[in-house]
């Protein structure tokens, strides 16, 4: 599938990368990425080493592009730092200022961002991430998840229009993950642009309406999860079938044109197909005629995991 389709760009973008590349010596970290982001949550997906972090650093002006350009709210952030009043980055690294308390850190960020009432803004941001009880503790005493939340509070304190979050849920416990996802969804619904990088696919599915996938520094795909799957017409989809006699059912199904391959694990069949709808209607009829009793039929991979796997392995 070619990534160079209309899905790589959005209408009324707030953030655009144009043929963006970054290399370190012989190593290419980001290669010729052109895409745009608009209001709402966009998931930036990719395996470790895909170039997501470098891409976010390029977008925020933290590193200099080797080639290409960035447009952030109409300006190049490296040329006009005033734009940082409207954007924020939550970096992936655990590091925070160890000598500061969470309150000092968030309040400092507010004052640096020229917020009118930094105390009030800091209190509100800390409350948004449920850190009130630990606000007066030094950041060096925080767990990884708490540090992440402190960084999120620091990023939110000036109510940015554009928010880049690099693996923001790392280290957070399940409850906090759920709360942060809820927060990000709400911020997206308010019309802010959120670009959230993650390799935890299920979490991205819960918050992002659009996905941009990177593999080996390149833009591999972009669009909604559904549109991505539709675009990849040649991707085999997998259906899970449980039956009392899986071998007999497999023998009956393997000759069908819509079946690409079948693997058997105990009583479970994993059937790869190019036409899941046809296969879905075929399986009960074939099972009936073969005298096999079905106990479960369900799509196995209607998740980003499958799209992702295809993008990584299928290239």
């Amino acid at each position, binding site marked *: 599938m070619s990534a160079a389709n209309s899905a790589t760009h959005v209408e009324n973008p707030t953030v655009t990368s144009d043929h963006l590349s970054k290399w370190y010596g012989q*190593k290419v970290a980001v290669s010729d990425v052109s895409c745009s982001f608009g209001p709402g949550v966009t998931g930036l997906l990719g395996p470790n080493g895909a170039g997501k972090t470098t891409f976010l650093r390029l977008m925020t002006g*933290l590193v200099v592009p080797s080639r290409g350009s960035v447009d952030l709210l109409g300006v190049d952030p490296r040329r006009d730092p005033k734009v940082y009043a409207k954007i924020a980055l939550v970096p992936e690294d655990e590091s925070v200022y160890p000598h500061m308390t969470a309150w000092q850190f968030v309040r400092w960020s507010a004052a640096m961002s020229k917020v009118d009432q930094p105390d009030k803004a800091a209190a509100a941001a800390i409350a948004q991430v449920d850190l009130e009880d630990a606000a007066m503790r030094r950041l060096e005493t925080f767990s990884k998840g708490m540090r992440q939340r402190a960084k999120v509070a620091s990023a939110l304190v000036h109510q940015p229009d554009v928010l880049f979050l690099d693996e923001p849920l790392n280290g957070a416990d399940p409850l906090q993950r759920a709360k942060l996802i809820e927060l990000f969804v709400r911020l997206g619904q308010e019309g802010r642009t959120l670009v959230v990088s993650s390799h935890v696919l299920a979490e991205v599915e819960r918050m992002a309406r659009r996905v941009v996938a990177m593999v080996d520094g390149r833009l591999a795909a972009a669009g909604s999860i559904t549109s991505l799957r539709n675009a990849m017409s040649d991707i085999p989809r997998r259906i899970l079938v449980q039956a009392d006699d899986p071998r007999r059912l497999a023998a009956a199904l393997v000759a069908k044109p819509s079946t690409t391959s079948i693997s058997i694990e105990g009583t479970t069949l994993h059937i790869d197909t190019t036409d899941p709808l046809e296969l879905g209607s075929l399986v009960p009829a074939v099972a009936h005629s073969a005298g096999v009793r079905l106990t479960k039929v369900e799509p196995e991979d209607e998740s980003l995991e499958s799209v992702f796997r295809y993008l990584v392995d299928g290239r």
Partner: protein
Amino acid sequence: MTAFGLILTSTTRRLLRFRRLVGLVLLTGLPAPVLFFVSFGTPDSRLAGLYDEMMLTVFMVLALPVTALVIASAALGEERRLRTMPFLVLKPVSRWTIAAAVTASAIVATIVVGGIGVAATWLVGAILTGNTLIGLPAMAALAITSAGYAAIYVPLGLLVSRSTLAGLAYIFIWEFIITSIASGVSASSIWRIGASAYGDVRTLSSDGVAILDEMLSTVAVGIGGATAKVIVMLVLSVAFTGLLLRRRDLADE
């Protein structure tokens, strides 16, 4: 508070963290116990000279350059090493303001740490000699030298990942060897600039004059000239650091 003030206070606090402070205070305070113990058996007429010798050699040539190196190279280098740089630079603040504020922090932190050492030695020197103003030249030299070293080490910390090693190489190769051999560049040696201010603040003991003459080589004594040189160095350093912040990657691969 302005962005300059916010960065200044925050960076100074970071640079003065307890763990770093203890070792450096012990280093800058080294002349005090040395002076105290060496004073036993030293004639009273030579005590002022002994004090000058301690400050001009142990403090100015050894303790202060190393202290300034550790502190000033950490001003931006630590931000990069600890990966906290995004919190500092992704703010609506000009790179020049950041560079100036961070450099000022390095100067303040070095003066605080060095000042503790100077104060300790001042106390011992005052008790031994009865001269309560004996520490003033060292304080003036400390301020000027701290600024001079900050001008070198702050951008070095941003440029080089092993900035402490690079800084030590600078001290020994440039400050000690090259500027001693080549009289044409000795006026650019920062500890000589500091020493020239030291010599101008008070009338030195005869021993102190001899040591200073040997140290300064062709560099003229004078706090005005020393201050002017350091101001020029600071302006150039802030401009260069600001340029680095604009042009270079601020996060490692």
